[in-house]
């Protein structure tokens, strides 16, 4: 590929031919302020904020669409370029209400950032500002017209990515405003949450997040969306051990910059307060809370005594490490079927402008991981039924993560030993001999394997409830003490045991999965096709 060498702010930089000045400046660590340009959308060069001074050019050039040329001399941060930005920012503030104290974007607002770093200290406007008020766009989106900077990123997202052009600019001049057609709203778009993400100011805000927290109070934890098998990379935003919102994290191989509204809106369950916080064992007179040090050895004894067939119910919401530890334990005590139930949607919802991304049919993050571990999906598309054989078991019965919502109260009452591991209390598990608290995906680290068989890591965003432990730790300790081996000390160690067991994970190393995940080895049959 041919390259060009140019000078930006006195630094020489070599970039591939066709690179825009804005990206060339990024190479040397200079961020040219911009609104309308977004890497995933077309560049109309209309915000006029990314104007830079190019030597020899008759006028300032918009850096988002100007291609780097050999020998060009570009100035982004001094003289004319800076004066122009100061002027453009002053125009932006003519009608901007400056209601930062009550604006949800405050703290992550590009207008705030740019004006603070290079705008005028005091406004010179004397005329009253025009007022639009706010408009409900439907879905989770609220529009504050006064704050809008007319970058039209939202219009272009709906046009180019969602390919459902329901937004447009109406009127002209200072009366121009983003609007939907004839009060139709966003018409239940499945991707409308993304326009809130890409809005550089507080014009489009989320109703769900409205006034809930300030941007600077939120801790961001890299994670993976738990709501379908696409496994979109996300950041979990938490404050005071409460999840407040999910935001997409860029991963060009999985979700680009986007995530669907279905995944974005389903995080409340991570904040549920009805949790199992202590390990319980059934004694003669009722439930006992012997603590982990009491529960695990007595469970180990019971497991050693059990001779009947082994049945296990897993959950596709559990991490690979959890499922691997369950598989290992089941094989250690004699082997048996592991089944899982998960909800399935009737269809996929793809993002037309980025077809790799879709809300997948499987509404659990780790169905592929469960399949690779030889677990079978049972039951209907609403994650119910299918457990008749398991419920009738007279041997050992282990349930991990499945809340058994549709099961009768006497579920597993015929089992010789019934162990329930879960985060939330399950009424159907009242016949259990042991109820052990485990953490949710948001409280532990681990990996999910998505629909592309890509193994992706997530980090703990919350503190675990009470004495809950990750399931891989509980099950790993049990297997280890049954076998007389040391227990896995970390998720990484648990994953390396998994890698030794599953050929697809053979070459993977937990520490090298990184923030973006790594595709698992293709099974030989598929690899041969390539």
């Amino acid at each position, binding site marked *: 590929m041919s390259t060009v060498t140019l000078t930006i702010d006195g630094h020489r930089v070599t970039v591939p031919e066709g690179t825009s000045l804005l990206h060339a400046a990024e190479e040397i660590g200079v961020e040219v302020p911009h609104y309308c340009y977004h890497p995933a959308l077309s560049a109309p060069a209309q915000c006029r904020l990314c104007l830079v001074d190019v030597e020899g050019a008759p006028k300032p050039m918009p850096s988002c669409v100007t291609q780097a040329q050999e020998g060009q001399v570009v100035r982004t941060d001094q003289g004319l370029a800076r004066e122009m930005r100061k002027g453009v920012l002053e125009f932006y503030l003519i009608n901007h209400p400056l209601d*930062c*104290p*009550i604006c949800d974007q405050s703290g992550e607002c590009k207008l705030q950032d740019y004006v603070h770093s290079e705008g005028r200290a005091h406004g010179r406007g004397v005329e009253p500002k025009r007022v639009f008020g706010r408009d409900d766009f439907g879905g989770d989106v609220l529009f504050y017209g006064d704050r809008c900077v007319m970058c039209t990123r939202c219009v272009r997202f709906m046009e180019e990515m969602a390919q459902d052009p329901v937004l447009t600019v109406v009127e002209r001049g200072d009366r121009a405003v983003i609007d939907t057609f004839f009060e139709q709203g966003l018409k239940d778009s499945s991707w409308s949450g993304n326009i809130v993400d890409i809005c550089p100011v507080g014009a489009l805000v989320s109703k769900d997040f409205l*006034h809930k*927290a*300030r941007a600077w109070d939120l801790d961001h934890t890299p994670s993976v969306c738990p709501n379908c098998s696409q496994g979109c990379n996300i950041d979990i935003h938490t404050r005071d051990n409460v999840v407040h919102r999910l935001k997409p994290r860029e991963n060009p191989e999985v979700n680009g910059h986007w995530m669907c509204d279905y995944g974005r809106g389903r995080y409340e369950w991570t904040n549920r307060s009805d949790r199992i916080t202590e390990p319980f064992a059934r004694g003669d007179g009722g439930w006992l809370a012997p603590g982990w040090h009491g529960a695990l050895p007595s469970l180990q004894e019971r497991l050693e005594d059990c001779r009947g067939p082994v049945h296990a119910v897993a959950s596709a919401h559990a991490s690979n490490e959890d499922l691997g530890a369950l598989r290992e334990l089941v094989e250690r005590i004699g082997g048996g079927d592991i089944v899982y139930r998960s909800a399935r949607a009737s269809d996929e919802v793809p993002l037309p402008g980025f077809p790799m991304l879709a809300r997948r049919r499987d509404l659990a993050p780790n169905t592929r991981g469960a399949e690779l571990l030889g677990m079978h999906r049972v039951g209907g598309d609403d994650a119910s039924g299918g457990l008749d054989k398991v419920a009738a078991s007279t041997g050992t019965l282990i349930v991990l993560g499945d809340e058994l919502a549709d099961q009768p109260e006497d579920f597993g009452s015929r089992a010789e030993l019934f162990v329930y591991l879960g985060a939330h209390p399950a009424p159907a598990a009242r016949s259990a001999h042991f109820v052990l608290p485990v953490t949710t995906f948001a409280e532990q680290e681990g990996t999910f394997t998505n629909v592309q068989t890509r193994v992706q890591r997530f980090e703990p965003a919350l503190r675990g409830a009470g004495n809950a432990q990750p399931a891989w730790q509980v099950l790993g300790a049990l297997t280890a003490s049954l076998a007389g081996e040391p227990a896995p000390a970390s998720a990484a160690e648990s994953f390396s045991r998994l890698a030794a067991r599953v050929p697809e994970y053979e070459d993977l190393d937990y520490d090298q999965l990184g923030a973006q995940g790594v595709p698992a080895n293709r099974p030989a049959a598929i690899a041969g096709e390539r």
Partner: protein
Amino acid sequence: MAISVKVIRRPEAARSSYLRAALKGMSLTFRHMVNPRKVTRSYPEEPTELHPRWRGTHRMEVHADGRPKCVACGLCPTVCPANCIRLVGGEDDQGNRYPIVYEIDEFRCIFCGMCQEVCPVEAIHVGQHFENAEYTRERFVYDLDRLMEQEHPVTALWDPSDPASE
């Protein structure tokens, strides 16, 4: 090591007498008795005058219709060095952003006045007030209603007509 005895002589009477020191002290006392500049106050009958920039417990300003002026922008809990302000924002029925929970732990507070300084809507103020006795510790966590009920004068951290001290 041989034990040795150190002999200390008793000081002579002129130096060891307390009479001289007692008289010296009493002379100061009697001087104050006739001094016209009295410094003792009959508190609480005579209220104490506070310095104009005295920073005491907080007070929340209210609108004419009784709503708190606070817009729950979150700047005071952010700036507070003692981390004594707890704020949960929300939207009221008229679409205004307002504090659902606004609590100040006056025991944690170090009375720096930065909450007042940072407030964009002049809602929270430190007050010209120091009589805060309570029977329980819990009563020192002032909630929004309590802060709005306070009637004591607020502190002028700067001249309102010249906020930048120009």
